[in-house]
């Protein structure tokens, strides 16, 4: 009888353990599926491992600063409106701290250019042109554009797109001293490649779609209505026929129809998005007030 009781207890224990065991097996199997929770954890871990082979943050900043200098040569200086620059930095930093790469400092800059564009330099310096800013209607739309660019910085899209650059084949670090020698030449050549990618050819289409999805997630997590990204894309679509294409979002980004379709489908992930912040009045106070915008001397 005692044996029977013991057996029944063991059987009960096994039954209770069975779902746990099955769950464990499932979790193990799920590791192979990149879309599963376990797969995402594994990919996060492997990302950390592989990142030790990548460029250091300090060198990434040097790349970003150098590219920032070239960006201003091409598109113009920052708009001389400190209140506007501060406002855009506040919106940008609000979303950046909820992005997948929240621990680095970000800078956001409004450039005095009528070409409708926004782009991100590695390391976290993000530019938006006065032309694109003027097209927007509220703070949620600005947050959507800046979140898209933060997504590129977080996933290091620009650096991934120039993986074959000679500089990255070597030590991939730079100092003021080595900048003067052959490493400096390779570095300069890499900055040239980055300009051509960001301003003319555009990033890989997959990276743009990835940044769009990241923008929805980041804006939503911050508390902005993610639907605003669709609003921005639709406005760009209306502009497409007449806007200057060279160096703009039109020439460097995938077709707007496809982006709108993908973003609209992804919005289903945020069923409680209605009622999230849009803030047209605060946006108008800072952006519409100095719409002309002057450059600093």
């Amino acid at each position, binding site marked *: 009888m*005692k044996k029977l*009781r*013991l057996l029944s*207890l063991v059987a*009960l*224990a*096994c039954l*209770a*353990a069975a779902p746990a065991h099955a769950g*464990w097996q499932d979790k193990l199997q799920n590791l192979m599926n990149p879309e599963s929770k376990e797969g*995402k*954890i594994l990919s*996060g871990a492997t*990302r*950390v491992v592989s*990142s*030790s082979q*990548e460029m*250091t*943050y*300090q*060198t990434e900043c*040097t790349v970003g600063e*150098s590219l*920032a*200098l070239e960006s*201003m*040569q091409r598109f113009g*200086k*920052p708009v001389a409106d400190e209140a506007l*620059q501060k406002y855009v*930095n*506040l*919106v940008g930093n*609000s979303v950046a*701290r*909820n*992005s*997948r*790469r*929240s*621990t*680095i*400092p970000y*800078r956001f800059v409004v450039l005095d250019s009528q070409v409708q564009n926004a782009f991100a330099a590695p390391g976290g*310096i993000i530019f938006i042109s006065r032309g694109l800013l003027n097209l927007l209607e509220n703070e949620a739309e600005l947050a959507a554009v800046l979140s898209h660019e933060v997504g590129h910085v*977080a996933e290091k899209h620009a650096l991934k797109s120039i993986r074959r650059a000679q500089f990255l084949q070597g030590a991939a670090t730079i*100092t*003021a001293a080595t*900048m003067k020698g052959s490493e*400096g030449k390779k*570095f*300069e050549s890499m*900055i040239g490649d980055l300009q051509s990618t960001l301003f003319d050819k555009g990033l890989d289409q997959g990276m743009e779609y990835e940044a769009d999805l990241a923008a929805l997630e980041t804006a939503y997590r*911050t*508390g*902005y209505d993610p639907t605003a990204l669709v609003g921005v894309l639709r406005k760009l679509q209306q502009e497409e026929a007449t806007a200057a294409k060279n160096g703009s979002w039109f020439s460097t980004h995938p077709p707007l129809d496809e982006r709108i379709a993908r973003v609209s489908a992804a919005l289903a992930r945020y069923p409680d998005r209605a009622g999230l*912040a849009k*803030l047209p009045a605060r946006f108008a106070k800072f952006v519409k007030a100095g719409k002309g915008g002057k450059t*600093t001397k």
Partner: protein
Amino acid sequence: MKKRALGGALLLLALYAGQALSAETRWVVSEGTTLKTEQSVSAPNLADLPVGAELTLIEGAGRWLKVRTADGKEGWVYAGRVSDTAPVAEVGGGDGLLGGSLQKSQIDTAKADSARSIRGLSPETAQYARQRGTPEGLKKELDRILARKVSDKEVKAFLKEGKIGEYAQ
């Protein structure tokens, strides 16, 4: 009697294993995240949660989640500040994996940034600008861009003013 105790222990073990394996993990991905006593931004803080901290989800599917920290503290965290995937780790000196290195690299990036804002653009970028013959005016613009820092306090006040996220009513 001993056997019964063994059986009971086995049962407990199995139940515990089931619970442990079904527990869901969330990672803190946002700067300035705090553990609250209640589901409100104005509730008292139980702990500051660093980016990369692992939390066990206890309950909640809405905007606030009840979680347990690694050192056993239970409280509420705003859902927008955690994710079911780990945040991107920074590449500092290229040492270490996970946990400690993530926190160390955050310190490195903070140091790098405060040094940058004091001296403006880095010596490496200054050398690049010399070689490229970049106009002085543009170097000064970049200095201004790098000096324009936004503090955590300013961001919180900005979100509060706009009634955004956890400050929404």
